[in-house]
């Protein structure tokens, strides 16, 4: 177990700046997730922590001591890959035993550890199989087992669930979380799936264009996004954004026809972007106090409620409607949301106002 600190870490390939001056401390025993779109540098970051790639600048420290000159073996990290990366010519038993054999452990110790991990992950009956005789979920388990068998200081996972089908992914998510709670090993997880990041992590860092946009607990990044990028990336379906203008004299913000109380300092030209999550937007066939008339374009049933797409003036938005509302495409409707849930962003820099 270790605390990982990244100090002014940067990496560039030739002219391309992948990671720029990154500062971060991952606490001991924490489940920490880097989330971001593909190409944001999150895998590079993980590979640098693993020791598979060398940083071009800055320092990586485990419990305060720099490790960037150490090989993966010396760092004592374990890693799970997206494609599982099992050794195809070895049986499940040998795959699990491999990291221990590389560390010259005794025969009996290896056997005991393999059986312990196999028991933990429900692989007891599969030990003699080859990887290609396993299903995706089973392969995933073996990959996990191979990583946890030698009780590493740091556990690294590079999109480990993205090759599984949706149902299995949710199962494995819960299993990962349980496993982490039992082992309490510092875990760094990389994913592009914000739902996965939210459900698994103690803390999340949203990575975009080689820089951390925001770092915090799942609740913080969801409810208090630091900028428009984070607001749009975290949460599904993504947040609605409506351009606003300060209405002179009334001391109110005009957001596509909705008048909102001005609560934030606006940029000099009096403009802002208002963001509201679809789950806070209520669309109904009946007019209520403060609601505004919109045009519905599509209704997607989500079981206990409906997602409703509509136009507020020129802006396309998404909200929720009750199942019994009987809304349909083209039908007129009324939209409202609690003003307190609205967030405001600088239209130029994207920063939260």
């Amino acid at each position, binding site marked *: 177990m270790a605390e990982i600190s990244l100090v002014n870490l940067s990496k560039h390939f030739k002219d391309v700046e992948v990671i720029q001056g990154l500062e971060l401390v991952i606490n001991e025993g924490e489940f920490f997730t880097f989330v971001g779109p593909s190409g944001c540098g999150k895998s590079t970051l993980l590979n640098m922590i*693993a020791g*598979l790639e060398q940083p071009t600048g800055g320092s990586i420290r485990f419990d305060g001591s720099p490790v960037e000159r150490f090989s993966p073996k010396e760092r004592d990290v374990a890693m799970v*890959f997206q*494609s599982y*990366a*099992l*050794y195809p010519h070895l049986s499940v038993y040998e795959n699990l035993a491999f990291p221990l054999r590389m560390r010259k452990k005794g025969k009996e110790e290896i056997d005991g550890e393999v059986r312990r991990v196999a028991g933990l992950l429900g692989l007891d009956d599969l030990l003699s199989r080859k990887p290609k005789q396993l299903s995706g979920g089973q392969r995933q388990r073996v990959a996990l087992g191979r990583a946890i068998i030698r009780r590493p200081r740091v556990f690294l996972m590079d999109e480990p669930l993205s090759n599984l089908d949706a149902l299995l992914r949710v199962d494995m998510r819960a299993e990962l979380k349980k496993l982490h709670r039992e082992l309490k090993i510092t875990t760094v997880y990389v994913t592009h799936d914000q739902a996965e990041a939210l459900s698994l992590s103690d803390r999340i860092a949203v990575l975009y264009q080689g820089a951390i946009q925001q770092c915090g607990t799942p609740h913080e990044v969801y409810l208090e996004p630091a900028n428009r990028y984070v607001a749009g990336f975290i949460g599904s379906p993504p947040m609605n954004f409506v351009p606003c203008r300060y209405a002179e004299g009334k001391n109110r913000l005009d957001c596509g026809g909705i008048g909102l109380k001005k609560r934030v300092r606006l940029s000099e030209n009096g403009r802002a972007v208002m963001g509201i999550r679809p789950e806070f937007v209520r669309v109904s066939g009946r007019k209520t106090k403060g609601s505004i008339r919109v045009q519905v374009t599509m209704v997607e049933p989500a079981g206990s409620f409906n997602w409703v797409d509509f136009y507020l003036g020129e802006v396309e938005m998404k909200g929720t409607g009750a199942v019994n509302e009987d809304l349909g495409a083209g039908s007129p409707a009324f939209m409202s949301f609690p003003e307190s849930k609205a967030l405001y962003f600088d239209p130029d820099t994207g920063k939260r106002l």
Partner: protein
Amino acid sequence: MVKKTAFYLLLSVVLAYCAGPIIWQILTSVKPDQELARIPPLVTSHPTAAHYIAVFSGYPFMRIILNSAIVALSTTILSLAAGSACAFGLAKLRVRYKSLVLAFVLSVSMFPPIATVSPLYLIIRFLGLRDTLYALIITYTTFSLPLCIWIITNFFRSVPDEIYRAARIDGCGPWRIYYLIMLPLSLPALFTAAILVFIFSWNEFLFALTFTATASSRTIPVAIALFPGLHEIPWGDIAAASVTVTVPVILLALAFQRRIVEGLTSGAVRG
């Protein structure tokens, strides 16, 4: 129906073209001397084993087969060892100018042997290796390495990088990744390279003719070509010898046929 007839017609043409000379050779090897020149070369009514007996009693043929076997096996082992190590570097390690290296390696095999045989002869003589098996083993290894490196590099490249990285994380250095992971995974490619190199060394003629002088280091193709005839060329003995030495190669190819196909097509189709 027409399609099927055409197919079999084409098949028999190809078969006749490929197998014709071999069948002719086999027929020749069991004919009595007086029938040898008869055209068309039909099956003889008096098959004889005289040529086979002559080959093994009249010439130091066992010695020659042994020479060939030593040369071919040593060449194969050396080429595979050096070739796969080189391929590992080119396929998986951080090496500068990889494609340049590969192109350079290939260029070695572009010179026609006849262009290199004289300077090589001088070198071999300078090293004092003339008329030894070493002369042949070294030259053959040099010339078969490019093929080995290319086949194995391509196969190594098809091994996912994540497996390589997983092995590093699990605590392997490059050397252990090479022999614990890459080599076992690449058996089909190794078999393919091995059999091609073996056949090349088994059949090579020009260098063998130039670098050897006596039966102590002579290999099969040269020995057969130099079968002494008193007044005429001993076609029957030559045929018998050829058939004898072709058999192991054919057996080898048949035994590893499936492996070879796997090796040659790997990378083209991902399982």
